[in-house]
Each structure stands twice: as structure tokens, then as C-alpha cells.
């Protein structure tokens, strides 16, 4: 308890609070603008957090990401374009209600369900993470190796589009992670003779390229004008809210549970949480017709789920150092940059920091209601910001942000290259998230493997010698061979039908 009190005091320091409020406003703004995702908000924030202490740095990322995921709902409701992919699941339903003149109610539901979902996820994180950490203290490099493998594999398989393209994206990410000095012997590897690459390819520059520059390129090519905003005056968004929330309390609770459970899963992010809970609430809806015509039922569930998953996704990220999605991958990168190694021992070495991070979730979700209300009120102006002005401004921030990481132009070059690569990959159906996870986890995968092999003196069977390692190993291998098994099963059942 004393630790939580200390963490609370640390979080309440005026400079931390100012950082949280400012990054919340930033997150709301970026999230509300279609085309600018929550991950992009975080990627643009990282260069600035580089100059902060660890707690305000992570608190800034936490608040910006939570706010951006909520703010994605605003253009969903008013323009029928999800502000971030996490809002895509219920955009259609939300906009249909807007057309029926219920925009205020939907926006009210979005802000409250997001805040409550995020809060429950944060409480889960606070109480569950230490338990996982105690358990994780007993795990060795064998278990780590398999956990990283499982995380990466799930990321490749769960990502939208074809599994082969997901795997290729992951492998390319891993290949990029291997650039730099080989950790065991310190010899340069794949550096093409450039000393600038000895430290590896810059993570932040890669991120900014893939998420921001790629988006600017897409904007430059886009020929679709923005649809006009539903013209209306937004009054009291909390009017008549409570009876509706009470009516859909079951869906609300389901959404929170699904979101909280989905968050820690490797590869599953806020958007997947929203899709799953939306699909589940449709499946169990008593009035499917009303649901399909656009009702609050799915919005309540999915709106809570995406924010709950943002909070709970920090469990594997902080406790094991294994990110589940691109956002937590960035957080891990930031922790490493601050000289902190995420892992079970962080609860012993940095208890105030880690509980400070957890409490920042609670703070951010509590702030979401007043700030979110403000953003909704100002939505007309936010959504009217001309993107022809916004995109070049973002571009110059990207340039300076990438440069600020190591004060060389190499980072700007990296950013440009990965901007074009990220754009090309997305155009051709290669998901970006597996590549990013590969870049973040590639080193860890190699190091845990080599450490284990040195310990085991080259005996690969040692990877299955411990109960947990063996179990996770078998699960991972099953996931690997599952596509082949499914294919064989389809073939044999197809033959039976023919016979």
C-alpha cells in the first residue's frame, strides 16, 4: 500500500499532471482526426518523451493512447469514418443512430463506456500484474524464448489479411532487428559498413516512418474528399444516458470482460477487442433486427472493450517485456531508452514507477470524461481542421522528432525509407503490426535463444525440459503447424465429400 501511496504522490507532482493533461489533449486531437491513429499519436509523442523522466514519459503515452482510442469514436459518430481502427467495429451502427438524431446519446455512451472500460482494465492491471510478476520471477530464458515466439506468431496469424503476408511482415521485422552488433561477440552484422547502423535501426524513426510518413503519403494520394459532417448542435451528451446504460448493462459488462481478457493476448489490440465484443453482443442480442439497424447494444460493448484492452495490454508488456500490440511495443521501446528493462523484477527495482504507470491509467480514464466532453463540444472545429495544412505540419514534426532521437540525419533517412516501405506494405495487404513487433522483439528472441543454447550446451531438448517452457513450447509449435493441419483436414474431408 505504501508503494501505491508513493506512486500516487509521484503522479500528482504538478509537472507530471501538466504532462498528462497536455498529452491527453494531444491524444484527443489526433484520435479525433480520421487517418491519424492512436499508434501515430504515440509515435509522434515518443521524441518529446525522450526528454522527460520515466514516469511522466510513460504517463504521457498512457494518457495519449487512452484518449486517442476514445476520440476515434467522435468522427465515427459524426462523419461515419472511424478516427482510429479501434472504432471501426461500431462506426456503422453509431452513424445510423446519428442520422436518427441521437448523436448526443451515442457520444455520451462512447465517452462513459470508454472511461469505465479503461478504469476496469486499469484495476485489473494493478491487481493482476504483480501476481503475474511473482509467477514470472520463476521463469528462465527457455520460457521467455517460447513466450516471445508465441507472441510473435500470434501477431502474425491474428493480423488482418492473409497469414502468409503476416508471417512475411514478421520475418522482415525480425531481419531488421538483427542489424547492428551481434550481442554475443560484438561483431557488426548487416551494417553495410556504416557505423551509424552499429546500434541497430532506430525504433522511433521506424515507427514515425511507418505510422506517420506513410499516412502523409496516403493523404497525398487520396482523391476522396471528406464527407460532410452531420450538421447538428451538440447539447447535453449525458441526458438520458443512465437508463440506456442500465438497459444494456449485460453487454457493457461483457464488453469490459472481453476487452480486459483480449488486451494481454499477444497480437490482439484494441481494434480486435472491439470487433470480438461487437460480434459477441450481436450473437447474443435478443433483438437482432434492431441491432442491425443501429442500436446502442453493440456500441456499449465494443466502446468499453477497446479501452479496457488498452489498459490490460500493459500486463505482458510491463511484467514480461513482451508487447501484445504496436502501442505497447512503443512503450517497451521507451522503457528501454530510459534504461529500464521491463520484466518481473521491475516490481522490485522500480515499484514506484510501475505503480505510477498503473495509476496513470486511472487518472487518464477519469480525465477522459471532462476532457472527452470538451473534445465532443469542440468536435466541429477539430474535424474542420484542414488536413492540407495539418499534414505538412505533422511532417516537419516527424523530421525533427526522428532527428532528436540520436541527433543524426540517419534517423530522418530511416524514417523516409520506412515511410515508403510502410505505405507499400499496407497497400499490398502486408500488416504493419507484426513487422513492428519483430523489430522490437527480434533482439530478445535471439538473445533468449542463444543464452538458452549456451546453458543447455547445444541440446535443443532442454527447451522442453521445464514444465512451463514445455507447455508453452508445445502450444507454440501447435500454432505453427495448425495451418498445415487445417489444410490437410480440409483436403481429406473434401475427398470424403467427393467419394
Amino acid at each position, binding site marked *: 500500500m505504501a508503494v501505491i501511496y508513493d506512486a500516487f504522490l509521484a503522479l500528482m507532482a504538478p509537472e507530471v499532471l501538466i504532462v498528462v493533461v497536455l498529452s491527453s489533449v494531444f491524444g484527443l486531437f489526433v484520435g479525433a482526426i480520421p487517418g491519424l491513429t492512436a499508434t501515430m499519436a504515440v509515435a509522434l509523442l515518443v521524441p518529446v518523451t525522450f526528454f522527460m523522466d520515466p514516469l511522466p514519459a510513460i504517463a504521457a503515452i498512457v494518457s495519449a493512447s487512452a484518449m486517442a482510442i476514445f476520440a476515434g469514436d467522435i468522427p465515427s459518430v459524426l462523419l461515419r469514418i472511424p478516427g482510429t481502427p479501434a472504432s471501426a467495429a461500431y462506426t456503422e451502427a453509431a452513424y445510423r443512430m446519428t442520422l436518427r438524431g441521437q448523436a448526443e446519446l451515442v457520444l455520451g455512451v462512447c465517452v462513459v463506456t470508454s472511461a469505465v472500460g479503461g478504469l476496469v482494465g486499469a484495476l485489473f492491471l494493478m491487481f493482476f500484474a504483480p501476481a503475474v510478476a511473482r509467477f514470472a520471477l520463476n521463469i528462465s530464458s527457455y520460457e521467455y524464448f517460447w513466450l516471445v515466439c508465441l507472441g510473435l506468431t500470434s501477431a502474425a496469424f491474428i493480423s488482418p489479411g492473409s497469414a502468409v503476408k503476416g508471417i512475411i511482415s514478421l520475418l522482415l521485422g525480425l531481419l531488421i532487428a538483427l542489424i547492428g552488433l551481434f550481442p554475443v561477440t560484438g561483431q557488426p552484422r548487416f551494417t553495410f559498413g556504416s557505423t551509424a547502423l552499429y546500434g541497430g535501426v532506430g525504433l522511433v524513426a521506424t515507427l514515425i516512418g511507418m505510422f506517420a510518413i506513410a499516412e502523409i503519403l496516403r493523404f497525398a*494520394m487520396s482523391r476522396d474528399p471528406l464527407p460532410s459532417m452531420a450538421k447538428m448542435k451538440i447539447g447535453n451528451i449525458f441526458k438520458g444516458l443512465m437508463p440506456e446504460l442500465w438497459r444494456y448493462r449485460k453487454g457493457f459488462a461483457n464488453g469490459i470482460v472481453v476487452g480486459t481478457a483480449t488486451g494481454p493476448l499477444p497480437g490482439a489490440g484494441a481494434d480486435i477487442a472491439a470487433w470480438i465484443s461487437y460480434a459477441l453482443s450481436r450473437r447474443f442480442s435478443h433483438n437482432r433486427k434492431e441491432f442491425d439497424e443501429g442500436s446502442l447494444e453493440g456500441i456499449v460493448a465494443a466502446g468499453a472493450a477497446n479501452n479496457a484492452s488498452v489498459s490490460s495490454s500493459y500486463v505482458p508488456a510491463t511484467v514480461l517485456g513482451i508487447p501484445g500490440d504496436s502501442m505497447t511495443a512503443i512503450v517497451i521501446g521507451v522503457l528501454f531508452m530510459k534504461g529500464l528493462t521491463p520484466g518481473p523484477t521491475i516490481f522490485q527495482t522500480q515499484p514506484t514507477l510501475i505503480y505510477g504507470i498503473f495509476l496513470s491509467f486511472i487518472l487518464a480514464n477519469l480525465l477522459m470524461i471532462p476532457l472527452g466532453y470538451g473534445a465532443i463540444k469542440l468536435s466541429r472545429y477539430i474535424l474542420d481542421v484542414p488536413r492540407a495544412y495539418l499534414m505538412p505540419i505533422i511532417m516537419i514534426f516527424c523530421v525533427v522528432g526522428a532527428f532528436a532521437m540520436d541527433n543524426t540525419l540517419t534517423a530522418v533517412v530511416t524514417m523516409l525509407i520506412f515511410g515508403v516501405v510502410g505505405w507499400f506494405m499496407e497497400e499490398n495487404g502486408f500488416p504493419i503490426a507484426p513487422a513492428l513487433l519483430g523489430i522490437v522483439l527480434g533482439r530478445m528472441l535471439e538473445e533468449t535463444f542463444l543464452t538458452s543454447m549456451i546453458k543447455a550446451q547445444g541440446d535443443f531438448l532442454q527447451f522442453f525440459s521445464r514444465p512451463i517452457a514445455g507447455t508453452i513450447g508445445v502450444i507454440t509449435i501447435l500454432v505453427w503447424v495448425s495451418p498445415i493441419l487445417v489444410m490437410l483436414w480440409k483436403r481429406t474431408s473434401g475427398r470424403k465429400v467427393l467419394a
Partner: protein
Amino acid sequence: MKVSDIILGPIIVAIGVIALIAASVQPKPIFGGGYGGGFFPSIIGVGLLGAGLILSWNGWRERAGVPFVAFDGWIRSPRHIANVAVVIGALLFYILASNWLGFIIAGFITLFATLLQFTRSPMRSLVVAAITTLAVKATFQDMLLVPLPWGLLEPYAGVLTWR
């Protein structure tokens, strides 16, 4: 720009082969059970090779319905081609010229050119570019102490910094 899997597949195979060759020239370790710097890249190389072959096979099966390279509408609009060219050109210009011109001049030109292309409004672009450049300079160079290059303005650095 959508490229058919029948072209992308062999490219991925080629990357896999390059990774395998690069891995094979990595020095062999003298300890650690024979797992050197080439071990992991070779696994990834094999993976890319296999996945690239599957992708090529998928492309081959769908070859009748999918063109080799399909461009979206933007390629037929000179304005949109210019948009893309200006974004990439402006970034390349910054990379090549910022050390010589300095952030204030190179950043301003980069920003102004992109704004002008996107908005077609010279006066507004000029104002927005000037204000943004100064705001970025104040935030990153003066507050966060990022050593943005001074370039040509180096003799005036003392006058242009407020701390």
C-alpha cells in the same frame, strides 16, 4: 500501387536468399555451441524463402484475375503525382540540405513547398510555414535542447536563441 503476388513472391524469395548468403559469411563463433551471428539470420532467410514461395504460388494461381501492377486513381491525376513527389522531394531536400542551410531555412523551405502544393494558397502557406518553423525551433532547439543544425545562420545563433 498494388503489385501482384506473382512479382512480390520472388522479391521475398530474393530477400530470403540474400539473408542466407549474408548469414553464411558471418564469422563462426568459437564458443556457445556453434551458434554465431549467422544462425538466426539463416532461420529467417529460410522462413522468407518458404513464405515467398507460397506467396508466388498464390500469385500464380490468381494470375488470370490479378494484373501484375495496378495503380490507383492517383496515378492518372498530375496533381496527386505532384503531391507525392513534393512530399518525398521535400524530405530528400531536408536530408541533403539541412546541414548546409540549417534547420530554420531548410525546415521552412520543406514546409512551405509541401503546404503550397497541398493548399495552393501562397500567402497562407508562407505564414503557416513561418510560424510552424519558429514554433518547432523554439520547442525542440530551445526547450528540449535538440541540436538542430544552424547551417548558414550559425553566426547569428546567439541572437536567435532565447536561452
